[in-house]
C-alpha cells in the first residue's frame, strides 16, 4: 500500500502541462459493476506532439454482489495517437497494478429470519499487469468521452492467477485548459 501511494505521489509531482481527470464505469467482463478514477499527465515537452506520452495513475473498484470487492491501484503508461483534423483519437498503454480483493468465503444462513450472519471474508493480494486500448472523443474544449478495453492478469498471489478483462467508459476533464480556449 505504501509503495502504491509513493508511486501516485511521484506521478502527481511530474512537471506536466496537460492534466486530465477521468471518471468512468469500470466493468469487469463488461457487466460486473465497478468505477475508476484516473489522473492523466502528459509531460510538458510532449503535449503538442502527435503521439504524446501519457502517465496515468488510477484507482478502481469492481465487485460481484455477495461475492467479492476488488480495489485496483494502477499506473498506466501509454501513448495517444491524435489527428489534428479529427475530434477523436486513439490511445494504448501498459499498466502495472495491485489488486486488493476481499472475498466472501462463507456465512451463516439464519433459518428463522432468512438473514445472512457471521459473514467471513478472505483477503487476497494480486499484481496486475495489463494492456489497454481506448478511443476518445472531444465533446467540448475541456472534456472527452472515452471507451477503453483492458486485458490483464491477476497474478503472484496465494489465490490462483486469472485473466481479467475490463470495459470502461467515462469522461475525461482537462484540469488545465480554460473553457474559453
Amino acid at each position, binding site marked *: 500500500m505504501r509503495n502504491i501511494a509513493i508511486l501516485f505521489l511521484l506521478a502527481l509531482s511530474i512537471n506536466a502541462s496537460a492534466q486530465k481527470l477521468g471518471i468512468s464505469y469500470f466493468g*469487469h*467482463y463488461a*457487466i*460486473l459493476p465497478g468505477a475508476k478514477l484516473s489522473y492523466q499527465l502528459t509531460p510538458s515537452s510532449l503535449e503538442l506532439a502527435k503521439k504524446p506520452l501519457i502517465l496515468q495513475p488510477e484507482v478502481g473498484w469492481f465487485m*460481484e*454482489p*455477495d*461475492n*467479492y470487492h476488488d480495489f485496483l491501484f494502477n499506473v498506466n503508461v501509454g501513448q495517444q495517437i491524435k489527428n489534428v483534423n479529427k475530434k477523436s483519437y486513439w490511445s494504448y498503454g501498459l499498466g502495472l497494478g495491485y489488486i486488493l480483493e476481499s*472475498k*466472501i*468465503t*462463507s*456465512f*451463516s*444462513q*439464519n*433459518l*428463522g*429470519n*432468512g*438473514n*445472512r*450472519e457471521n459473514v467471513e471474508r478472505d483477503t487476497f493480494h494480486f499484481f496486475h499487469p495489463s494492456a489497454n486500448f481506448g478511443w476518445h472523443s472531444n465533446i467540448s474544449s475541456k472534456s472527452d468521452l472515452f471507451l477503453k478495453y483492458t486485458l490483464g492478469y491477476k497474478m503472484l498471489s496465494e*489465490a*490462483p*492467477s*486469472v*485473466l*481479467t*478483462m475490463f470495459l470502461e467508459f467515462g469522461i475525461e476533464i482537462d484540469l488545465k485548459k480554460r473553457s474559453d480556449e
Partner: protein
Amino acid sequence: MNRNEFLGKLGVAGLGGLLLPNLFTACSEETVPNIDVNFNGRVLIIGAGTAGLMAGYVLKRYNIDFEILEASSVHGGRVKETSTFTVFPIDLGAEWIHTDPDVLARLLDDSSINASIDIINYSPPEISIWKNDKLRNRNYFSNFYGEHKFKNSTWYSYLNDFIVPYIEADIIYNEVVSSIDYSTDNIAVETTGGNNYTADRVIITVPLSVLKDGDINITPSLPTSKINALNDVYMPDGIKVFMEFTEDFYPDVVLEGGLFQMNEFDGDKVYYNAAFGKDTNKHIFALFCVGEQATVYVNQPNKQALIDYILNELDEYFDGKASRSFVKHISQNWTAEPFIRGSYTHGNFDVLDELKTPIDEKIFFAGETMAPNDTSTVHGAANSAWVAVERLLADRG
C-alpha cells in the same frame, strides 16, 4: 446461475449467460404462497423425497390429516448423505444450493426457528477443462460461476433436522404404491404388499421415471395430454463418486471439452473438489455425471471396475497422480436405485406446465419435475410441494 445451467450455457453462450450469478440468484427468489384453507379431508402423499416431505410439513401446519407412503426404507429420495466416508458429511445426491440460500428459511416459513446453517460461498477459483487430451487452465470461468453449498451439513440434514421431526410419525416406509383409483370421491390407493389406503386427495411426488414407467396404475388413466407430456421428458442416468486422495493434485473443477463442445452431450460431467470451503485437510475429489456421459459409469459391472475406470481417466488428466495417491472411494449410482432410476428431469421443459396440472382437483403432482421454477433442483421440488398443497387446500373442486 446454477451448475446445470453453467455447464449447459458454457457450450452455447460462451459463458455469457452466467454473468452476475449472484444477481441472478437474487432475482429468482420465490416466496411460499399464502394459503387459504377450504379443505378438511384426508391426504395421501406418495413418496418421501423432498417434495413429499415438504408437502407433509405444510399440511401439518394446517392440521390436515395425511400420511406419506414411501417405497424405500428411508426418506429423502435423491437427497441422501453419508457421514462416515470422511470428516464432513457428504451429499450423495443433490449437493449445490442453486439459488439464494435464504430459500432455506423461506421454505420453512417459520420465524420462530432459532437456528442457522453455515453456507460456503461457492465460487471455485481453479477451473480447468480437459480438451484434446490436455488439461487447460480456464480460471477466468470462475468470474462467471457462483453458487452456494452447505459447509458442515447437507441437503439431507436440512430435511432431516427441520422438516422430518414434524412429520416422522406420518411416514410409512416400504410401501410401494401400485395403483391409484380416483374414479370415486374416495380415492383408493393400493400397495404391492396388498395394503389399501383411502384419501380425499393424493399428492404424487414420485420421480419422473417411476411415473413414466407406469409403476403406478392410475384409474381412470391419465389424460392424453399428460401422457404426451410425459413422453417428452425423461430422467437420464446419474452417478456421483467421491474419492479420497493423499494429495491435492487437482484444480477445484475439471470440465470436459471446449467452450463449444460441452453441449455435445445432453447432460453434465464435472470433477470437482468436494472439500472446497470445508474445514478439513482431507483431499476429496468427486465425479458428478448425468446424462449420456454417465452411462459408461453406471454400467460398470461392479464398484471396483467403476473406480478403476475413473482412476484411469484421472491418471490421463493428471499424469498418473490419481492412482498413486488414491485412498478410497464411495459411489452412488442413482440409475440403479430401484425407486429412483435416474438423475433428474431432462427433455422438453415446455410440457412441464401440463405435467404439473392436477387431475380433477383430486390428484396433485409435486417434485423436481413439477417445480414452479428451477426444475431439477431441491428447492424447486420443495417449492412445488408448497404450490401443490396451496391448490389442494384451496379446494377448487
